[in-house]
C-alpha cells in the first residue's frame, strides 16, 4: 500500500482525511471516536468566547443531494471546551481548533485559548453562512479576511488556516488576502448559502430560514474553488465539500488540495467513511503504481 501520510503546514497526519468542523466534534468522546475510526485529524466545532445554544430547531433538512443546516454555532464556549480538547488529545487525536467570533480580538483570544490547550492548528471559521454578525460579513471582505488572519497569527504559534466561503464572486482573491495575512494553509469550501421551503406550509423549513448546503451537490463547486485557489496562492489547501468516496477526494487533490475534510458523508456512510476514503485513494494509487500522494496534488492543472 502506498504511504498516505501527509504533512500540511507542519501538521503531520497519518492520512489526508480530516473531520470537517461541525460534525461529531462538540465533545471529546466523539472526536476520539472519529480519530479511532481512521480520520487523520479532527477539526472541532467552531468555538467562541461564550457558550452559545444556536438556533431553535429545525436546524437540519435532509435532502436527496445533501444536507441543509443552520444550527447557529452552538458550542460550550472556550472555557468549558478545555476538557473536551484534553480528552481527544489524550486519546491520540490530531486536533485542529475551529474558531469564530464577532471581531478580530475575539478570534485571537479564542484561538489563543485553543492553542494553550494543545491543538495542532487553528481553523478560522470566516464564513459561516448562517450566523448573523459572526463570520458572514467577514467572509465578504478581503480586507477583513487579511486582518483577522493577521490578528490570530500574531497571537498563536500553531499553523492558522482560514476556511473560506464559496458565497463570493472571486474566492481566489480571498485566498490571496488570507495568504497576505500570514495564513499557513487555506480550507475551502464552507457551505453554500441555500434555502428549503415546505410547499404545504408555505414557509422556509429552517427556523433561521437560510442555511448552508453541504454534501454531494456542492462538490463541483468546491473542486472549482480549490482549482482557482491553487493558481492564486503558494500555501497548501485543504479541500472540503461533498466528499463521499476516494475518487471525490482525488478530484480535490488533483485540483490542488493536499488534504481533504469529510462531514456530511458520515450520515450516509457512517464513521467508516474515513477508512474507506483513505483505502480507496490507496487502491487508486496502487493500481497505477503511483507512490507519492504529493505527485497528485494539483495534477489537473496544465
Amino acid at each position, binding site marked *: 500500500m502506498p504511504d498516505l501520510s501527509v504533512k500540511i503546514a507542519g501538521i503531520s497526519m497519518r492520512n489526508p482525511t480530516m473531520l470537517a468542523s461541525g460534525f461529531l466534534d*462538540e465533545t471529546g468522546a466523539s472526536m476520539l471516536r472519529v480519530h479511532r475510526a481512521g480520520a487523520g485529524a479532527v477539526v472541532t466545532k467552531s468555538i467562541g468566547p461564550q457558550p452559545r*445554544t444556536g438556533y431553535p430547531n*429545525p*436546524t*437540519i433538512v435532509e435532502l436527496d443531494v445533501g444536507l441543509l443546516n443552520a444550527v447557529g454555532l452552538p458550542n460550550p464556549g472556550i472555557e468549558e471546551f478545555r476538557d473536551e480538547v484534553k480528552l481527544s488529545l489524550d486519546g491520540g487525536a490530531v486536533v485542529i481548533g475551529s474558531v469564530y467570533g464577532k471581531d478580530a480580538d475575539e478570534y485571537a483570544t479564542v484561538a489563543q485559548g485553543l492553542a494553550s490547550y494543545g491543538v495542532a492548528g487553528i481553523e478560522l471559521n470566516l464564513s459561516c453562512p448562517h450566523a448573523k454578525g459572526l463570520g458572514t460579513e467577514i467572509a465578504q471582505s478581503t480586507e477583513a479576511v487579511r486582518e483577522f488572519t493577521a490578528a490570530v497569527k500574531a497571537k498563536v504559534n500553531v499553523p492558522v488556516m482560514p476556511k473560506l466561503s464559496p458565497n463570493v464572486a472571486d474566492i481566489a482573491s480571498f485566498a490571496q488576502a488570507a495568504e497576505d495575512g500570514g495564513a499557513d494553509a487555506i480550507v475551502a469550501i464552507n457551505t453554500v448559502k441555500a434555502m428549503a421551503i415546505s410547499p*404545504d*406550509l408555505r414557509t422556509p423549513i429552517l427556523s433561521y430560514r437560510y442555511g448552508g448546503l453541504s454534501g454531494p451537490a456542492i462538490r463541483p463547486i468546491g473542486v472549482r474553488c480549490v482549482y482557482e485557489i491553487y493558481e492564486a496562492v503558494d500555501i497548501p489547501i485543504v479541500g472540503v465539500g461533498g466528499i463521499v468516496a476516494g475518487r471525490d477526494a482525488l478530484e480535490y487533490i488533483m485540483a490542488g488540495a493536499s488534504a481533504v475534510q469529510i462531514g456530511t458523508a*458520515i450520515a450516509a456512510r457512517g464513521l467508516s467513511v474515513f477508512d474507506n476514503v483513505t483505502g480507496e485513494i490507496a487502491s487508486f494509487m496502487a493500481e497505477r503504481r503511483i507512490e507519492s500522494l504529493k505527485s497528485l496534488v494539483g495534477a489537473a492543472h496544465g
Partner: protein
Amino acid sequence: MGRLEVVPLLDVVREVHHTLTYRFRASFGVGPGQFIMIWIPGYDELPMALSYLGDVKGVTVHAYGDATKAFASFKPGDLVGVRGPYGNTFAIQGEKVLCVAGGTGMASIIAAIEAFHEADAEVVTVLGARSADELIFEERAKQCGEVHISTDDGSRAFHGFAPALAKKLMDTEKFDAVATCGPERMMKAVIDLANQRGIPSQASLERYMKCGIGICDACAFDDYLVCTDGPVFTGAQLVKSKDFGSVRRDASGRRIPV
C-alpha cells in the same frame, strides 16, 4: 436519510390533563422504541418516540415547554412535519418480561409492551406516575398482561416510586428480561436492579437533539450518540456508563446534571 413529510393530524386525544396523543399517517415504517423528529411549525422540532406504530402512527407528548404547550392547541387537520424513523428498537426477546414505565416514559415503551405480548412473552408492567391522574396507557398495557401501579403521592395503589415496586416483583418472580423508560434516575435504579440479578435489560434514553441522524453531536452520551447508537441501550452498556443517571448536555454542549 429521512425526508421531511408534512402531514395533517388525524386526531388529537387528551390522555391526561397535560398529555396529548397526536396521530398521523407517514410513509415510513417504524419499530418499537424508534423515534421521529416532529416539527411543530413556528415553534420547534423535537425527538419523539412513537406511541402508536402501524399505518396510523402517534406521538404522546407531555406539554411542558413553549413548543409542546403550543402543540396542545393543534387540532385535527393542522399540519406537522415528521422525519424518520431514527435510532434502534427495543430488542423483543425474553419469555417473561418486566416493563417499568415512569410518567410520559410510558409513551415510549407501550409499543414495546405490545410487541413483547405479540411475540408471546408473558409481560408484567409496572406503571408509575406522580399521582393517579397522570397514569397513561393503563388499559393498553392490561391488554398485554398484568399491570402494577405505583404513585409517588400514594393517590392510587402502591405508594412510592416505580423501582421500589419493580424490586418487590423481582424479589418474588423470575424475569428473564427487563425494559424501562421514564425519568433517568428511575431507569438507573431499574437497570441496577436487573444487573444485580443478572437479568438482561434495556432502557430508552432521552437527550437534547438537533439532527437526529448522527452528525451534530448534540446528544452525545459517554462516547455514544443517543440518536444513532440508541435511544435504547442495554444494561451491559449502561453499567459501564459515566453519564447514565448523572450527566446530560444543554443546547450549547455544556455538561449539566440529569
